[in-house]
């Protein structure tokens, strides 16, 4: 009931927001990476990147990682989790889409920014650990953070990390 109410509120507030699809010339799409244990199409792949950017917006930060965030997240889920988790993640991703579609007749991309965050608030409050939607949210958030906090930018500028320290000083002032 709580979930339905939360979603109803979002639907009411977001009514009237209309996004017109843009038209682009036809381009040959770059193939998305293959993940053996994850059945993911291009739309879903792109959605995860968009979702990660909402979870951790980094517009003004220069982060250079070898792969985009969505690819890292899916690498980690695909390779470092059991198959059950992979299935649960994809199920959660589908539910994520379906929940928005059912309740807003819309896609995540088309939701207004404040509504996206409201929806994320709702996701973050799911307590049932068996819920695939919660697993999708928690896992995407976890690896989004790891992708950033393990980057050259973060390690160097925020964690005093050096590849070649050369020395050790054990009693330096803070």
């Amino acid at each position, binding site marked *: 009931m709580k979930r339905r109410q939360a979603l109803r509120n979002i639907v009411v507030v977001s009514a009237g927001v209309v996004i017109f699809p843009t038209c682009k010339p036809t381009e040959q799409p770059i193939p998305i990476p293959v993940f053996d244990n994850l059945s993911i199409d291009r739309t879903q792949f792109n959605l995860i990147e968009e979702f990660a950017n909402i979870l951790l917006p980094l517009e003004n930060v220069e982060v250079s990682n070898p792969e985009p965030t969505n690819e890292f997240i899916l690498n980690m889920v695909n390779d470092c989790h059991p198959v059950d988790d992979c299935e649960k993640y994809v199920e959660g991703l589908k539910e994520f889409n379906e929940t928005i579609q059912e309740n807003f007749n819309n896609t995540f991309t088309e939701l207004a920014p404040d509504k996206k965050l409201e929806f994320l608030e709702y996701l973050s409050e799911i307590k049932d650990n068996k819920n695939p939607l919660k697993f999708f949210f928690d896992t995407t958030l976890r690896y989004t953070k790891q992708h950033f906090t393990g980057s050259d930018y973060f390690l160097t500028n925020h964690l005093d990390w050096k590849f070649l320290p050369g020395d050790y000083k054990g009693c330096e002032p*803070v």
Partner: protein
Amino acid sequence: MSDKTDHHFDTIVIGAGMSGGWAAKEFCDNGLKTLLLERGRDVKHLTDYPTTNMQPWEFKHRNKVPYEIQKDNPVISRCYAYNEDAMHFFVKDTDHEYVQEKPFDWIRGYQVGGKSIMWARQVQRWSDYDFEGPARDGFAVDWPIRYKDLENWYTYVERFVGVSGNYDGLDTLPDGEFLKAWDLNCVEQHFQKSVKENYKKRHVIYGRCAHLTESKEIFVKQGRALCQARNLCQRGCPFGGYFNANSTLIPWAEKTGNLTLRPHSIVHSIIFDEKENRAIGVRVIDADTKETTEYFAKIIFVNAATLNTNAILLQSTSDRFPNGLGNDNGLLGKYVGFHNYRAKVNAEYHGHKDIRTIGGRATSAYIPRFRNIHKQETNFLRGYAAGFWAGRNRDVNGKGFGEELTKNLLAEKGFKPWYVGSHMMGETIPKESNYVELDEFQKDDYGIPSLKISIDYDDNDEKMIQDYFEQFTAMFKKAGFTNITTRDTKQAPGLDIHEMGGVRMGHDPKTSLLNKWNQMHECKNVFVTDGACMTSMATQNPSLTFMALTARAANYAMDEMKKGEL
């Protein structure tokens, strides 16, 4: 079968790890044509360290081992160093299976360099309190050597490998030939001071480690540079900043022109000639082609790493030795010991708030054994050493999501309180009931019986853990540490990677396999100088002692050859 003359050497060394590398180096330096056999692949210094210069973010899984590999290889996955950056240097469970009569985590490195590539690099000398232990406390047999027999060889080895340390003046942990030490940090010094004030016989010292902190001519000759304190040693070091066989011993031996290194060579057995009443060679299976070849030499050194050395000798049967080479007394494979690494104590320290550390350091503090040194004083035999460390992390706030998360992560960061930790390194008592033998049914891909391992803790180990918890909790409290927690990992033996024994040294052929020169009592031209030779286990990380014993035994063997005795 190849022509015998093609395969003739002065010496054969089985195993190209740390101790085998030392044997090869000594022989080659002295002009002996030496065949160095290694069951695994070759690993060349610099060129075969594929991850050594990779940045953390360049690892696809950010140093995590993929799930399927962990699932299929539970034993090796429990090893602290088995991560994405170094997993290619470890033997997977599925690569060479063994039989666990009791749980045993066998950590192996099948390659030129062996485990010396990934080792923890802690190097402490034994003292006479260790060599006299079995005789004084009535377990095992008496060591046939004492500290004075090994002292100069410790020095000899330390000068070549490079050891960073302080001169501590402790009778329990004799000083060596040291390069300068890095700092103990302020909290480690605080603990050092607290322990000194509260305990007369306990010492917190800098952990001596095989790293180059000063340049010397010998290291320049080896092509090694100073340690850059990266703490990425398990990947292999592009500077040669820590000692491994690949950067030091093997290229050194190769330069003499006397070394023949043969990787992918699985030793099936040592060949014993009944007429000559000596070992004459080694039977080898090529790991790729499975072709069997024989090599011949006057002297054979067995350095395949403790348990595989036991396996080779057990597999080396003949009419003269139906139960394994030199095994007249039936003790081969028995009295195996290890180090008890199950216990850890962790805490926080809220002092020294205005201090931090900068840079990296390849070692920690070390607390030499203080229990039962001069006399028996506890309800358990022997004692434990311990590692000790303190550090301080940036306080990263990863809470929330959206703009809040971004703000939290990018905020200026202070420091968390100091974390402090310790782990126990307990001496275990070698017992006849802790043994390895060849399995009756299971064979490996080469038709060689698998090793069956039956090794366990005993009541002495359990009592020691409790004492460590009590003593270190008290020591931590006295130092003002808070939030003290104790943890018994319940890990199986083997994960300490310090298994020793099975081919023990001793005075008497009836109760031991090797004499005081690591020479088989019953087969004088075969020497065992890796961990298999150890009569008792002490508490020190054992590699330095293996290297010193090897250098000593190799030089003895060469002297005997010159005299015509071998």
